[in-house]
């Protein structure tokens, strides 16, 4: 291994590389392009994934929404078409009977005209538990979310979306403590949040009031609009969805096979499909990147092979004056490794620069299409090591050719 640190070894390599600037350039571009593509594609794929996570980040994705509809099958003396309503007692039953739950959040949903001074608008009103903040993290700008006290005392407080604030308030007015009228009832604003990219309150924005207040104000008794159920990571959300619906059919005297009695939307499943797509894209990225890389390495091998043919005479001279076959081989392999490594390093640097460029143009802000397009250092290192290994292996071919020509034949070459 001593030769690796020998100045002369590198001088030999330097001079032979410098001698063929064009070939060196083309070779380097070949491999550089491969690793450049790998880095940029991986970074872009990561950007898409990050962007997706950013959009859904505040959202527990392993979740399902369940609401009541009406029966489609007669059962236990009831005709089909019986209207159904979820109740608070269903919440206890679900919590008791179903395995693998993280949160079950009952919600109510309605519409209300909100008025503040002379400004007004129609918005979605939600009756919510403090727990909602855990399932759909609210990015609070001012104040707080609904708390247990609000619930217990059925306080007339509300948390509004920034969009609503913009519509109802003059700029620079501090909203916390102010009152807005919802269907002629005054509610005090205790918090304001910024909506994530995935809106949950419709285009107009959402107003959250305590669940208990909602029940009272809108006269809903102990009914529940819909349940938002999140499962623990290790549990299959589709199974939870099926279990919950079966349990509900049981509790509400609905035919066990009545699929239409309770409606649901499985966010986890939809999310899973998208994640599958992302995985596929990542796989494709790897595949394309590595294939390009291999093509680049073969280009190096090919060009070195041509060079060896061109240098037959030189190799013959070197052998005539006492170069051992291994010394010739070593030099050609080192040339190959050096070229691939250099090209790889350049490819990584250019790839990184492009990722930085993407990041600075479309990589940040709420409108970002790719968020933080990055590549893991270990991935880059693995790619670099793979390059060096490929470089060595591919260098073996021209190296073997170089020493398989007898020096005498090499010297005859004109």
């Amino acid at each position, binding site marked *: 291994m001593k030769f690796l640190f020998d100045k*002369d070894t590198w001088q030999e390599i330097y001079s032979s590389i410098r001698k063929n600037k064009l070939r060196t350039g083309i070779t380097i571009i070949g491999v550089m392009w491969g690793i450049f593509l790998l880095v940029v594609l991986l970074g872009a794929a990561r950007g898409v994934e990050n962007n997706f996570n950013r959009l859904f980040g505040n959202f527990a994705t392993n979740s399902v929404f369940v609401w009541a509809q009406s029966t489609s099958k007669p059962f236990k003396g009831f005709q089909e078409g019986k209207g159904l309503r979820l109740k608070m007692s269903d919440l206890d039953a679900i919590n008791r009977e179903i395995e693998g739950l993280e949160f079950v959040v009952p919600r109510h949903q309605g519409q209300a005209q909100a008025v503040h001074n002379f400004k007004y608008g129609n918005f979605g009103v939600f009756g919510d538990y403090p727990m909602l903040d855990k399932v759909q993290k609210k990015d609070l700008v001012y104040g707080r979310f609904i708390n247990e006290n609000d619930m217990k005392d059925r306080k007339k407080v509300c948390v509004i979306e920034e969009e609503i604030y913009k519509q109802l308030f003059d700029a620079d007015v501090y909203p916390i403590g102010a009152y807005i009228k919802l269907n002629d009832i005054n509610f005090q604003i205790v918090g304001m949040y910024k909506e994530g990219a995935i809106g949950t309150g419709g285009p107009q924005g959402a107003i959250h009031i305590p669940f208990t207040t909602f029940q009272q104000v809108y006269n809903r008794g102990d009914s529940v609009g819909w349940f938002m159920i999140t499962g623990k990571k290790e549990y299959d959300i589709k199974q939870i969805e099926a279990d919950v619906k079966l349990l509900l059919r049981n509790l509400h005297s609905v035919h066990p096979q009545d699929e239409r009695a309770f409606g649901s939307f499985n966010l986890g499943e939809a999310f899973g499909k998208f994640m599958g797509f992302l995985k596929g894209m990542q796989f494709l990225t790897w595949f394309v990147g590595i294939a390009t890389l291999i093509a680049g390495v073969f280009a190096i091998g090919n060009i070195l092979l041509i060079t060896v043919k061109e240098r037959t005479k030189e190799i013959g001279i070197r052998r005539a*004056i*006492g170069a*051992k076959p291994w*010394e010739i081989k070593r030099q050609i392999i080192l040339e190959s490794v050096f070229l691939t490594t250099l090209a790889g390093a350049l490819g990584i640097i250019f790839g990184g620069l492009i990722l930085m460029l993407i990041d600075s143009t479309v990589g940040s802000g709420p409108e970002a299409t790719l968020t933080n397009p990055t590549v893991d250092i270990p991935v880059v290192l693995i790619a670099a090591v793979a390059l060096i290994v490929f470089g060595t292996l591919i260098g073996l071919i021209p190296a073997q050719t170089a020493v398989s020509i*007898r020096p005498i034949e090499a010297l005859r070459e004109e």
Partner: protein
Amino acid sequence: MIEFKKLHKSYPIGKKDSLHVLKGLDLKINEGEFVSIMGSSGSGKSTLLNIVGLLDTHDEGEYFLNEQKIEKLDEKKAAILRNKFLGFVFQSFNLIGYKTALENVALPLYYKGVGRKERQETALKYLDKVGLKNWATHLPNELSGGQKQRVAIARALVTNPKVVLADEPTGALDSTTTDSVMELLTDINNEGMTVFVITHEEEVAEQTDRVVRLKDGVIISDEITEKGKLTGRYV
């Protein structure tokens, strides 16, 4: 120094035939001799040089280089022996084009494993010896034919070999430079180096001490030249 006994060499032509190039040569060259092998093309002289230079192998007979019997050489051993005992001078100079004169001369020392500084010094010393010290940093294409051949001679000498093998060393040179190159080889020989020249030029052969004539793979004559007689080495 160099000794052949019944040396044979044939080259295969196609699948069945073969060309019998050397047909049982017997030759002994002692240390310090200045020998030329004369012959027209096809006489087998280049083949002989290749075998002597360990660039090729013989089929039958025995070859002794420096009292060492040469047989079953692999490339590595051949390379070491070449580096240690032999210095080559070729008709077409065979300098490496992208290396300076000094680097070309130093190259055999690199393969010998000599340190960088010592290499430079030794190479410069030999360049000085062939009168090209001032041309050390020039590339071969900046040198004249005679200068190139002198660089090649310096390169052949730099490892202090036992034998200098010169294959048509003047073949690509005009008569004036031919003379100066031959003078240089004579000087080297006078310092005790065995010099083995292959040529087809009568004038070149005359300047050596002993002429071995080869025809169709057989030695037809082995004579001491006028110049050789003057040396007093062959009495």
